[in-house]
């Protein structure tokens, strides 16, 4: 039999390809373009190879904010994931209270980042902010504008306040998908509450937890607005995270070459860590 080879169907991919090209590939290639050249204006440019990359990889300031960034994301994950799971386990399963809880949990997710920053900036002030005033009345010294630790904790608490709901809601949906018969079987088998959590709830929540971990990692690794609104990255450089350093470099100092090189490194770091999380969490599935 003669098989007619016809690859015309590939043309159907064209619209999507064009869309992706304009929205993702071209902007990204622009960045690549900047990262390997020194561009002054439309007609003046020199190819510099990996020079910008070498420069940013040796930049002390970037090293510092990268380290801060990793510590911050680790703290976010270590607090938000267990806290989200705990909240999901405590939420009522049906009735009016379940709906009420869901709505309350969803509210922080609807508030824009810069509003969150402003809320906490005012909330934490000792003169007009409820939190700051209460703490100072209690005799606890708290000043996010001057004290490194206070600023750090404030940004962390802000993020936890903003995003733990997301983890909790994802876990809640995972928990609701477990059929009742699993709990019944566990009761028959005399499983302890811990065993139910360890052997039923946690394994069944795994896929939503994977999504939660990835989203929270990527988001927290790119945090910009909240510390910027709160202290502008201060005091000193205490809450200057990667994206703020990058913005300063690109928009403040107009070092487009090094900024482009660093953007790509930044992108690769997120890709690498996300891949590592994914591989680690799905590793067991392949075992026989």
């Amino acid at each position, binding site marked *: 039999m003669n098989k007619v080879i016809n690859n015309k169907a590939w043309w159907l991919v064209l619209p999507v390809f064009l869309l992706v090209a304009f929205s993702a590939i071209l902007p990204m290639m622009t960045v690549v373009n900047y990262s390997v050249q020194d561009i002054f204006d439309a007609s003046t440019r020199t190819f510099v190879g990996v020079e910008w990359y070498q420069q940013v990889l040796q930049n002390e300031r970037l090293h510092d904010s990268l380290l801060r960034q990793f510590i911050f994301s680790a703290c976010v994950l270590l607090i938000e994931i267990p806290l989200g799971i705990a909240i999901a386990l405590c939420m009522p399963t049906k009735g009016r209270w379940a709906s009420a809880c869901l709505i309350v949990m969803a509210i922080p997710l609807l508030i824009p980042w810069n509003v969150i920053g402003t809320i906490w900036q005012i909330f934490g002030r000792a003169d007009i902010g409820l939190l700051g005033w209460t703490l100072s009345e209690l005799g606890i010294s708290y000043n996010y504008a001057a004290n490194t630790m206070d600023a750090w904790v404030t940004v962390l608490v802000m993020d936890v306040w903003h995003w733990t709901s997301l983890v909790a809601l994802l876990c809640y949906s995972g928990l609701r998908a477990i059929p009742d018969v699993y709990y019944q079987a566990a*009761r*028959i088998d005399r499983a302890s509450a811990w065993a139910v959590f360890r052997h039923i709830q946690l394994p069944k929540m795994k896929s939503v937890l994977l999504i939660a971990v990835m989203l929270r990692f990527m988001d927290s690794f790119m945090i910009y607005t909240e510390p910027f609104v709160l202290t502008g990255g201060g005091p000193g450089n205490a809450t200057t995270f990667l994206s703020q350093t990058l913005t300063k470099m690109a928009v403040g100092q107009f070092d487009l070459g090094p900024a482009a090189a660093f953007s790509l490194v930044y992108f690769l770091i997120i890709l690498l860590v996300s891949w590592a999380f994914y591989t680690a969490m799905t590793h067991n599935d392949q*075992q026989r």
Partner: protein
Amino acid sequence: MAEIRLQNLAHSYSAQPSGAEDYAIREMTHVWEQGGAYALLGPSGCGKSTLLNIISGLLSPSEGQVLFDMREVNDLSPQERNIAQVFQFPVVYDTMTVFDNLAFPLRNQGLAESRVTSKVHEIAEVLDLHPLLHRKARNLTADEKQKVSMGRGLVRDDVSAILFDEPLTVIDPHLKWKLRRKLKQIHEQFNITMVYVTHDQLEASTFADKIAVMYGGQIVQFGTPRELFERPKHTFVGFFIGSPGMNLIEVSPYAGGVCFGQTRVPLAPALCQRIAELGGQSLKLGIRPEFVHVSDEPFVDALRGEVRHVEDLGTYKILTLELDGVTLKARLQEDLPVPHKVAYIGFPSQWLMVYADDVLVEVRP
């Protein structure tokens, strides 16, 4: 090991039941004796699973008592009742190996690890799970998972009872037969009370010594498979057990028997008297297709009917007959002559049942 007694038990899922329809289980008193192998047979939605969950303690009955060896256990949890239950769909602990799954209930009991190992191997032997013991339970097929599920129920031998809720639904037919045999063997070996819920009469009669037939939230008959077949106490039992089910004909009484159309069926005087005592209830005459006497030649007191359809099922034939406007089924052995067009029909009196409002009319001895 225990005798399970249900005393005036009733259950409703609604908080304020207003009528009989609101009850999943209507008031019943029933005893499952120690060491028996029982089947609970009935159509979907008749309350079988509800009853099972009440016995195991997963559900608390709204009325009445559950007694284990005459001790009330209404407020005890499944753990305290020490009961094992196997569910319709397989439940395995995904992250554990098959071995750990089987060991799980024993370890929760605090059994010594050496005892756990020997018990698990014993049950794995019975269920042919040995080659799978060190595999993760997640990657098993549906019937392997169900075997693991069953294994977890069977591994504890000190339990009051083992309850099975249609455990073989997801299992291959040839394996079904094997597993039923296994269950029977396990029952004989350990002498544990077993209650087996099913909607399959064959499954019920091969597993159980006694079958409880449930219909509309009630146990309508409790007896051996033979009793259910020969003397159904309720038209539902007659209809549900046997293939095809019992012939049921609406009849009205006359002096000396019952009649439909022009056909008169004489009955024993004692039975006629009993029917007269009961008064104006809806009466039905029931006879199993196996017991309808069919011949191609006239005989004494034969009724003349027409043959509508013959179905050859190999070792026997099923005849569809019409008698005075009523359709009847009769089961004929393969070696008997098959009547053409006209059949002469007889109803042997010992197999004739009369039902008043669907309940068997019995003559007091």
